[in-house]
């Protein structure tokens, strides 16, 4: 779906090469290389401190790498842009802890995320068009919160907040979605529903999922990248990766 733009250096949607970053001498990421193809869904696992969240921070512009290349859509250098510019390019992010706007209604949360011009004047004189309203209703249906649309997001349960945030990502309609531990703190039923939701999204978006829950990753059934001490330790289908001795040693702790 995402044809490489003219002048593209690579056909990958996201291309990280030799990325390193250190905080006060601690190398959080060392020589990380990773490519995500258009339309791909990728799961990233790794023990605590493996650099998963730092990697997301680098991709979304929160952290600047000390060295290395981060390219989006083949030609855009993400290390030169700030968070808002990167978000507007089409990279959405869901945080580990669900972050929704507690004092807005569920519907307004979706409206704020809805893909649109983000300038001051455009938002000041904003009128929601019927097509946009339809899209909001559609998303509310997908995340099963349509009947609670008038409620404040702060009154939702943890699992519902996670879905609302996924709904906000859908509204943003990004080319690439970064999802940090979507199943954390969910019941088994909610986890299964979240997996269905993510698979649904992955049909027309590229998705990177960071997750600890092995059962959840098995349900997703996608290629897995194992991070360890800031670089890639193994990559491949889950069965192959979990048979890898090094992975078993560092991650599964046996």
């Amino acid at each position, binding site marked *: 779906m995402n044809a490489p733009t003219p002048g593209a250096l690579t056909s990958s949607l996201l291309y990280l090469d030799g990325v390193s970053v250190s905080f006060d001498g601690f190398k959080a990421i060392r020589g990380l290389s990773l490519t995500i193809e258009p339309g791909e869904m990728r799961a990233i696992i790794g023990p605590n401190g493996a650099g998963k969240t730092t990697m997301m921070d680098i991709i979304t512009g929160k952290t600047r790498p000390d060295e290395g290349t981060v390219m989006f859509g083949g030609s855009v250098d993400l290390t030169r842009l700030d968070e*808002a510019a990167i978000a507007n390019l089409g990279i959405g992010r869901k945080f580990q802890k669900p972050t929704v706007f507690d004092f807005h209604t569920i519907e307004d949360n979706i409206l704020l995320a809805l893909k649109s011009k983000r300038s001051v004047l455009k938002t*000041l004189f904003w009128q929601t068009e019927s097509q946009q309203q339809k899209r909001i209703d559609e998303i509310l249906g997908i995340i099963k919160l349509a009947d609670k649309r008038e409620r404040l997001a702060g009154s939702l349960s943890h699992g519902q907040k996670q879905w609302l945030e996924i709904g906000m990502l859908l509204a943003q309609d990004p080319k690439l979605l970064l999802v940090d531990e979507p199943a954390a703190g969910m019941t088994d039923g909610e986890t299964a529903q979240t997996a269905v939701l993510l698979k649904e999204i992955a049909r027309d978006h590229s998705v990177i999922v960071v997750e600890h829950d092995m059962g959840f990753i098995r349900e997703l059934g996608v290629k897995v990248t194992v991070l360890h001490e800031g670089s890639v330790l193994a990559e491949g289908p889950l069965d192959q990766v979990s048979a890898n001795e090094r992975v078993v040693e560092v991650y599964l702790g046996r």
Partner: protein
Amino acid sequence: MITRFLLSNMDRRGFVFLALIAAIGLLVPLANLLLPAGSPFHVSTATMSLWGKYLCYALLAISLDLVWGYCGILSLGHGAFFALGGYAMGMYLMRQIGSRGVYGNPVLPDFMVFLNWGELPWYWYGFSSFPFAMLMVLVVPGLLAFVFGWFAFRSRVTGVYLSIITQALTYALLLAFFRNDMGFGGNNGLTDFKDILGFNVQAQGTRAALFAMTCVMLISGFLIARGIVSSKLGKVVIAIRDAESRTRFLGYRVDRFKLFVFTVSACMAGVAGALYVPQVGIINPSEFAPANSIETVIWVAVGGRGSLVGAALGAVVVNWAKTVFTSGFMAPYWLFALGALFVFVTLFMPKGILGTAQGWWESRKRPAPVPAPEPAPAE
């Protein structure tokens, strides 16, 4: 588009507020001018000017609520914008004195003659024109807020650090305006005003007109602020208050939105200051005192942060109480009362007078309210 922008999403409380201010703006000047002094409904000129002052404070409170209550920027220097607007008005009024000053100099205000200045400084040019002075009432505070905000918000200075530098800003201006060679009258400030637009400032009719004008500006300020907070931009601004980095990851340029509301708010504070000066009859550097800005924060907190009507209400209630307390035997205890009020409101009425009253009213109507999220901590 503009009408819809200003009037859409107006709630009942907003209409009640507008109707009330419109009624006061009409009836108080009439009661002052037309009714004989013996009538029980007569409003004395002094009382009218006093309430005019309160209403200027109400506009200042609305402007602060716009940045603090809605955007989470706790400005401890909003008094600076108020005072700058006041000085712009004061400069116009000084130029209107003409040769009627003590020294009779047709161009130079008295304090400049006293300081042996030969000619008018360049930054006083144009202030003899009312439209120019009114433009400056908006431009000077607005420009200062824009430049200040540009650097502060782009560098992502937030929370208590931002509050401290806004406080430093107003303190720096206080010191600067105290200096005689700044050309703003030093610690005496600007006073002895004679005319505004050809009418005697002291005259009863002028006072009544100024009062009515204050009501008009309060209504306009309320409508503009209301339009902003109920637009999608208002939702973005609240989102910034509650989860700044989330808003940034949605693709909104947080610094620009903050800059917009901060600048609009500063202009509004400037207008409040400009209306305040002719009614009080003086503007001096003490208006820049950090304590003034902090008091404004208290008004907003008392009335109800995050509610424009609440902010205005808080300003009027606290200042009315201040008048009552500081004029009788309780005068020495006013600051204690103010401090106690702030502590009381913070502890027991975190949503202010209006928020608490509303919560009480709703809980009466509906016994089982939907659990509301915890209020965001004041930044």
